[in-house]
Structures are given as structure tokens and as C-alpha cells.
């Protein structure tokens, strides 16, 4: 209980104590189900992926877009480092999209009513996806546009 009390007083002299407060909390004590083993956490991740592909249209579009981008990169024979950067950019959007869906589920779980904080939670989570898409478009253009223009004969 004293750890939580320190949460209330961030200016407490015991800064070190409050820093170590979080890790003293055992999440299993407040979870209706405790994760059983490594293998089942992996299976939850696969289950979440299947859910996204089946239920979210955006994720399916994203999967197609990802395959097209990788296909174009392979066709243009970009270097390994450029390819690695593209894979990172694609992964960034996927992660933002999945975390957005997780936040949405948590918000829907918390309340069925309309609430300003529900709007903040959902809108800001989808802003994260938008930011990821913007960053990925910039990265994609920087890496793919020059060789693509050369290949299409527009740039010499």
C-alpha cells in the first residue's frame, strides 16, 4: 500500500523508492487468468493476428500493401540495408495498427457509454496509426522513388 501512496506524492524525497514501486506489483494478483507458459503466450499472439486479418479490413489492405512494397523493392533490386529499412517501416505501421485495435478493445471494455476520455483514447490511438503511415510513406518514397524513376525511364 505504501508504494501506491508514493504514487500520489511524486515530489516525495523517496524518488528511488517510487521508481522501484512498479516492479513490486505482481500482475498475477489482479488478473482473472494467469498466463500459463511461453507457448500459450505465443498462441495468443497468433490468435490476435488471425483476429486482425479476419475482422479488420484495414489490416487486410495493409497486408496487400506490404506485399506490394516488398515486391517492388525486390523488383528494383534495392540493397539489403534499404530492404531492412522498408521492413522496419512496414512493421511500424503493423504494430501501431494492432496496438490501436487493442486500445479500442480496452476502451470498449471499460465503458459502453459515450465518454470524452473514450474519444481521446480512440482518436489518439488512431493518430498513432496515421503517424506510422506518414512515416512509412516518407521512408518508402525516399528508398523506392529514385530507383523506380530510373527504371521507368523518367530519370536518367
Amino acid at each position, binding site marked *: 500500500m505504501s508504494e*501506491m501512496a508514493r504514487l500520489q506524492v511524486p515530489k*516525495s524525497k523517496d524518488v528511488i523508492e517510487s521508481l522501484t514501486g512498479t516492479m513490486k506489483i505482481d500482475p498475477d494478483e489482479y488478473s482473472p487468468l494467469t498466463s500459463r507458459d511461453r507457448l500459450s503466450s505465443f498462441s495468443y499472439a497468433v490468435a490476435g493476428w488471425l483476429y486482425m*486479418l479476419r475482422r479488420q479490413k484495414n489490416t487486410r489492405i495493409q497486408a496487400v500493401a506490404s506485399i506490394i512494397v516488398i515486391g517492388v523493392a525486390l523488383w528494383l533490386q534495392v540493397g539489403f540495408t534499404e530492404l531492412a529499412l522498408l521492413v522496419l517501416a512496414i512493421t511500424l505501421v503493423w504494430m501501431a495498427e494492432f496496438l490501436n485495435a487493442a486500445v479500442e478493445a480496452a476502451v470498449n471494455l471499460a465503458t459502453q457509454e459515450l465518454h470524452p476520455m473514450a474519444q481521446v483514447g480512440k482518436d489518439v490511438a*488512431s493518430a498513432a496509426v496515421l503517424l506510422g503511415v*506518414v512515416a512509412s510513406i*516518407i521512408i518508402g518514397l*525516399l528508398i523506392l522513388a529514385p530507383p523506380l524513376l530510373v527504371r521507368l525511364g523518367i530519370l536518367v
Partner: protein
Amino acid sequence: MTDPELESGTLPEPIEPDPAQANKQVLVTPQGEEIDMSILGTMKIDPKAGGASKNANRLASLKYGVAGLLYLLKREQSIQLAMVVTLITVVIGLWLQISSFYWALVALALGAVWITEALNTAIEASIDLGTDEIHPMAKIGKDVASTASLIAVIVFLTVVFFTLVPRIVDRLNG
């Protein structure tokens, strides 16, 4: 300094996991709904059944994204700081005339910072929505979400250290 009322223990009681449910493949909710715990179980859930409101179309989801971005820019100091850092980085990049590959690296690192900051704010809002009480799990949720932001900042600084810093030093040495 500590609030005596909190000192006397207002923490929620830990809950006991139901051992009968521990290794089952199908769980039953208090409302009698069945939850399939297998790999193929999650995708059987229809999100439209559980949402208070849902996206009408693709354009509307873009609108929500922009609305969230405006909220962040107005209300979140850390995002305003990220904006300033982004502008400074772009100016330095233009000054050094870095290659498009380095631009892509910097964009990726900055993107990670913005995204984790946005998701941190979103998770904070959903936790505040979920409970008004002080709860250990709320602390974990908020702390861990801000750890994600911290990691992204460390990654960004690492990228800057390897891409921009050597060139700035070169430039300043003539």
C-alpha cells in the same frame, strides 16, 4: 508526506484466479458467454458486438486520426517537444545534406517516437476511463506505456548519434 488515508490501505484486494478455469480451452463469462481460448478462437469474436460506436468508413477513420493528432498537439507537452525535436532534426538534416537513406532512418526513428507517445496517451486515457480508483494494474499500464516512449527516445538518440553527430562534428571542424 504520504496521505494517511492511503497509508491505511485503500488498495483493491487481489483477486483469486479460478483454478477450475486455469487450463480450459473454453472459458465461460459471468454472463454465460463462451470464450474459445484456442488460436482460432479470437477471430470468432465480432468487434461490432462490443463497441459503443464504430467507424462508418475509411474516410471517417482518417478523420479520427487527424482529430487525435490535433488533440495531441494541443494537449500533450511531450508531443509538442517531439514536434520541436522533429523540426530541429529536419533543419540539421537539410544543413548537412544527408543522403535519402539517412533521411529514411531518421524518419523511422522519429516515427517510432511519435507513435509510442500517441499510444502512451491513448492507453492513459483508456485507463482513466476504466477506473477512477488507484489500482496497481493502472500503475503498471501507465508506467509500461511510458517505458515504450522512453525506449523509442533512446532508439532515436542512438540513430542521431550514428547518422547526424559524426557529420555535425565533421562540418564544425571544416
